[in-house]
C-alpha cells in the first residue's frame, strides 16, 4: 500500500497518526510521486480536515479538485471524487485528501475549516453539480445562473447543448 514512504518520515508520521485517530474513516493511503494521497470516508471529512489543521499544522488549503469518474470501470466506484490539496509551512509537506461522492449526495462544506474553500467549492458545484451542505453562498461561479447542465461532467458535450 505504501512504498518508499520511509524517505519522507514527515508524511509517514502524518499518515500513521491519521490512521490511529480515524481508524474507520481511512479507506486507503497511497504514496505516489512524492505525494501522500489519503482516501477517506465522506462523512468524516470535516473532522479530518480540522484534525489536520489544528493538530498537524496544515494551515492552508491549496486547492479543491473535482473529478468525474464515470469513465472508470471499477467495482463500487462512486460517480464523483473531491480532492483536497493541503499543504503546511514551514516544513512544506503536501497531502491530498480524497473523498468519493455519489450524484445528488451533499458533502460537508470545508468553509468552516479553511476559508479558501469558499470559491473552490462553488467552482466544483458549478462544474460538477456536487452540493456542499453548510456552504454560506453556494451559487454558480463561472456559468450564468440559468445555465443548464454541469460542464465538466463527462456526459456534457464540449460544444455545449444548444
Amino acid at each position, binding site marked *: 500500500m505504501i512504498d518508499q514512504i520511509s524517505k519522507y518520515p514527515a508524511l509517514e508520521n502524518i499518515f500513521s497518526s491519521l490512521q490511529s485517530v480515524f481508524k474507520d474513516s481511512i479507506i486507503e493511503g497511497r504514496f505516489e510521486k512524492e505525494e501522500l494521497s489519503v482516501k477517506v470516508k465522506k462523512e468524516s471529512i470535516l473532522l479530518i480536515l480540522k484534525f489536520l489543521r489544528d493538530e498537524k499544522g496544515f494551515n492552508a488549503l491549496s486547492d479543491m479538485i473535482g473529478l468525474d469518474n464515470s469513465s472508470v470501470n471499477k467495482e463500487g466506484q462512486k460517480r464523483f471524487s473531491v480532492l483536497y490539496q493541503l499543504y503546511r509551512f514551514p516544513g512544506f509537506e503536501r497531502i491530498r485528501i480524497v473523498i468519493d461522492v455519489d450524484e445528488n449526495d451533499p458533502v460537508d462544506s470545508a468553509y468552516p475549516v479553511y476559508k479558501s474553500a469558499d470559491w473552490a467549492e462553488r467552482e466544483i458545484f458549478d462544474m460538477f453539480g456536487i452540493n456542499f451542505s453548510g456552504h454560506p453562498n453556494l451559487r454558480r461561479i463561472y456559468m450564468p445562473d440559468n445555465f443548464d447542465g454541469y*460542464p465538466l461532467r463527462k456526459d456534457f458535450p*464540449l460544444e*455545449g*447543448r444548444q
Partner: protein
Amino acid sequence: MADIIEKQPFVLARLDELITWGQKNSIWPFGSGLACCAIEMISTLMARYDISRFGMEVMRPSPRQADLFIVAGTVTKKMAPVVRRLWEQMPDPKWVVAMGNCAISGGPFPTYAVLQGVDKILPVDVYISGCPPTPQGLLHGLLMLRDKVGREHPTKEIFSVHDRPNK
C-alpha cells in the same frame, strides 16, 4: 432631396471630405479589453508602437464617448450580452474591429462557453487575425479602418431618411 444626394453635388462631397477627415483622424477607441489581445492592444498604445500618432490614443473608458470598439479577445457567452450592450451604448458613427482569432471565430476555443465569432452579435468593420495579433498587425488594421472611414459618405446618412438605422 434624395435625388440631389444620389448625385452627390460638389458641396456635399466636399462636406463629406471634411467630416470624414475629422472622423478618421480622431478615432477614439473604447478602452475595453477582454482577454489576451487586450495586452497587445495596450502595447500598441504604448511608446514603442504609439498609436497616438494617428490621434487614437484617447482611450475613453465610457462607451458614450468612443468611436471604435476594439473587440480584443475572447467573447464568452456570458460576456456577449454585455459586449452587445456596450456597442449599443456607443453613439453613431461607430466602428468595430475584431482583434484576434477568438473575436473572429472563437479561435482555439470551440467550447460550450465561447461565442464563435463576435460578428454574430456586432457588425465588424475590420478583422485582424493572429493569436494575439502583434501590435504591428493591429496598427495595420487600424490604418485600414482609417481608410475605410475616409471613404464613407456621412452626409448621405444625415440627409436621407431611408437608410437610417433604427433609432
